[in-house]
């Protein structure tokens, strides 16, 4: 990081090193100087904007290189105060350093510049434990606090506990967990226990939104709705190209859990079986058995764990019906199809862009409360995990 002292560079995103105890004062000074500079040099006026606090925590320096860019991009949609915390070597010398910077944009050619602030805190040694208390003193008052925790959820860690205590929402990404399935079960347990008041969300769940919408859409048509009560097989395929390393089934588990929670399917005996690279969920509802298979398959696009297809099937004495969604060759689209006894096959291609990790975070920043549908799906996950 190359610190600067020049006001113009700081409001263009270049960090300025500051003393931790004088961060607020430095920010006030920065805006005063920027306003004066704008007036003197007849540059566009600057306006400080903030609609929420975003805490970003890196348990280690890994992946923090691009954080400036990320924050700048998020601020395009969400003016916010970002407090980025980076924990370095815990056995190193105790140190806490801070930088401030701002990201500005001009929505209209004639208008003011809208600016959001970013504060970076980097700690090593014992000072790592100071990060939550430093962050708390820097929150913009009365605005929602969202914690974006990069890495495994560390439920045993004091830092994690303190940060979630000050947050309204916690964003995790189970795709990035070291052991996704086991950690997802952990999250499910905590959410179910309601041991923390903050709302949790998982970007793997956000990635499923278009899949959920398309699935729901099949059954908006009244003539297909009754099929929901007769589904007896579901096949979820998800991407796992490497045949050696363990697959990442979290998205597949979440979509299955969503179906189960919405349709009141309950775990039956031997509810969850891991069969090599595949998993099978055994569920039931009013005496009907529902088998859900989660299959790891190779796929040309996306990242490991992404859903590739979803099929819901009913097979009974009165006939069959199959509702399927599958990714197409064009990675931005999916094909949906309904076939079965007495049904004129209905097929169409729809846009289904999941969006980058940042786009998903941006979507999550729009929601402030608990996502009851997600929490109910996690109850099923927890149930399965305990069997």
């Amino acid at each position: 990081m190359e610190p600067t002292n020049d006001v113009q560079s700081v409001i263009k995103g270049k960090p300025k090193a500051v003393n931790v105890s004088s961060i607020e004062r430095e920010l006030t000074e920065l805006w005063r100087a920027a306003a004066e500079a704008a007036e003197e040099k007849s540059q566009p006026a600057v306006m400080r904007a903030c609609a929420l606090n975003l805490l970003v925590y890196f348990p280690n320096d890994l992946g923090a290189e691009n954080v400036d860019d990320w924050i700048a991009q998020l601020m395009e949609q969400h003016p916010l105060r970002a407090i980025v915390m980076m924990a370095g070597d815990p056995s190193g010398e105790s140190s806490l350093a801070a930088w401030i910077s701002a990201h500005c944009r001009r929505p209209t050619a004639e208008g003011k510049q809208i600016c959001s602030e970013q504060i970076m805190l980097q700690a090593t040694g014992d000072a790592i434990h100071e990060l939550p208390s430093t962050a708390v003193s820097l929150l913009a008052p009365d605005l929602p606090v969202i914690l974006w925790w990069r890495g495994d959820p560390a439920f045993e860690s004091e830092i994690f506990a303190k940060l979630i205590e000050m947050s309204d929402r916690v964003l995790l990404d189970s795709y990035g967990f070291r052991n996704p399935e086991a950690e997802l079960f952990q999250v499910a347990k905590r959410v179910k226990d309601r041991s923390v008041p903050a709302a949790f969300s998982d970007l793997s769940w956000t990635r499923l939104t278009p899949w959920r919408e398309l699935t729901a859409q099949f059954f908006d048509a009244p003539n297909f709705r009754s099929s929901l009560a007769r589904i007896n097989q579901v096949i979820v395929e998800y991407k796992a190209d490497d045949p050696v390393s363990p697959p990442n089934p979290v998205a597949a588990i979440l979509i299955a859990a969503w179906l189960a929670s919405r349709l009141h399917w309950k775990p039956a005996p031997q509810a969850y079986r891991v069969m090599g690279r595949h998993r099978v969920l055994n569920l039931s509802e009013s005496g009907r058995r529902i088998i859900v298979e989660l299959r790891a398959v190779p796929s040309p696009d996306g990242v490991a764990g992404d859903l590739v297809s979803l099929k819901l099937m009913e097979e009974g004495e009165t006939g069959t019906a199959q509702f399927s969604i599958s990714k197409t060759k064009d990675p931005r689209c999916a094909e949906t199809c309904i076939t079965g006894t007495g049904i004129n096959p209905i097929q169409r291609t729809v846009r289904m862009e999941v969006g980058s990790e940042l786009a998903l975070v941006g979507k999550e920043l729009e929601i402030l409360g608990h996502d009851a549908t997600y929490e109910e799906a996690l109850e099923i996950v927890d149930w399965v995990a305990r069997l």
Partner: protein
Amino acid sequence: MEASTFENPLRRGLRLERTPEPCTVVIFGSSGDLTKRKLIPALYNLALERLLPSGFSVIGFARTEMSHEAFRQKMREAVDTFSRTRPVQAAAWESFAQGLYYLPADFRAPESYSKLRDLLAALDRDRGACCNRVFYLAVPPSAYMEIIRRLGSAGLAQSGAHGWTRIIIEKPFGRDLETARELNREVSQVFREDQVYRIDHYVGKETVQNIFVFRFANGIFEPIWNRGYIDHVQITAAENLGVEGRGAYYEEAGVIRDMIQNHMLQLLCLVAMEAPSAFDADAVRDEKVKVLRTIRPIAPDDVDRYAVRGQYGKGWLAGEPALGYRLEKGVKPDSTTETYAVVKLLIDNWRWADVPFYLRSGKALPKRVTEIAIQFKPAPHRLFRQAASDPLEPNVLALRIQPDEGISLTFGTKLPSPILRIRPVNMDFRYWTSFGSEPPEAYERLLLDGLLGDSTLFARRDWVETAWALITPILEAWKRTSAPEFPNYEAGTWSPKQADEFIEKDGRRWRRL
């Protein structure tokens, strides 16, 4: 497969509680301007957002000879030019375009409707749209009645056991009370009121919907939203362009018909209405109509006390010399059509007694701006001896609709100096400082509502007729009496002097915008 009435359990927690049922939209006037600029781009964007059902189809209906394929190609170009999400995404377009069909036909010919019925039946069969339809009238208003009658006699208008039928009617809905009533009568011979969607795209704008949220989702404004605190309200819709080649159309309309009778009265209703008992179509529209009904009628002989008109002469717009209205193409050299008007309305109820609402709108003004300004009464007691040269300004709450959507509050504050001097300052909220994303187009929202069968944002028969009943005396009086010396304002200036005098007589003045 049997139909089911229970709700779709998979919808919980998703953006929409439901998506529209499979249906076919028939656009009358599909080779026209509105279709290519607004309707098809809006439908395509709904498809991109996965908000349209499978089996969704469109039939374009107009005289121009074209094949289905040529229509698809033309519409693709339209989306490429006019959609907020351009350029077109190939795969999504292909799938959407499979549902586009074209019927070259004349709406005056009875056989056109049997052809239409055959095509609809074929689509119901092949695309599973069974048997829901929306007819969209994007044709010149003179054609509305004929199409409606013919749809009726062809048996295409009924909602039946197999599906529903709706009709969306573009503005203008009539040109005075009598023609609006006549059109409504014709419509009601063929369609039930719950099948009819009279569109006013203004109401679909995000910022207009936000007036409702601003008033009824915040606890702090309602207590002061009345005659006890509010002195008057100014609603302005200013355009900084002349008639731009649409002179012939404008000669028939004028600003009263074009802006005030529909859009501006809708804005007035949103500001003045009581909170509805629920956010549903009838509750909201009942309250809107109640407002119109309590507006004091303007007697034909009294019009001068309530309204002022203007017409622009030559001047300057955006640094360029601009023609006077009478020199525009399609305009009569002695035209008396108004391009500017102010209407003062009084609402005779407990909340608003003696609080005038000034509606002003005009073409060829210095700025394009639409806003609602709520001007509060001054502080009751003059505590500060303000120098006579800078009087205390009243508080103003301005709801800006376009451009720079936002809300601002003006209040007095002390100038930093040892002497007590008070200056007005602005506290500003701009949408783009809090939300970066681009809002959907008004037509997207309105078309989706139409497909879902939600008519909250559409004008009901009684609203349209009550609005015309209020406005028609002004039109008639102006038709009877000759216009004052038109033109009476220069293009690029704020108003005719008559409009300034009009408000100054009430001891008020126009906001500087």
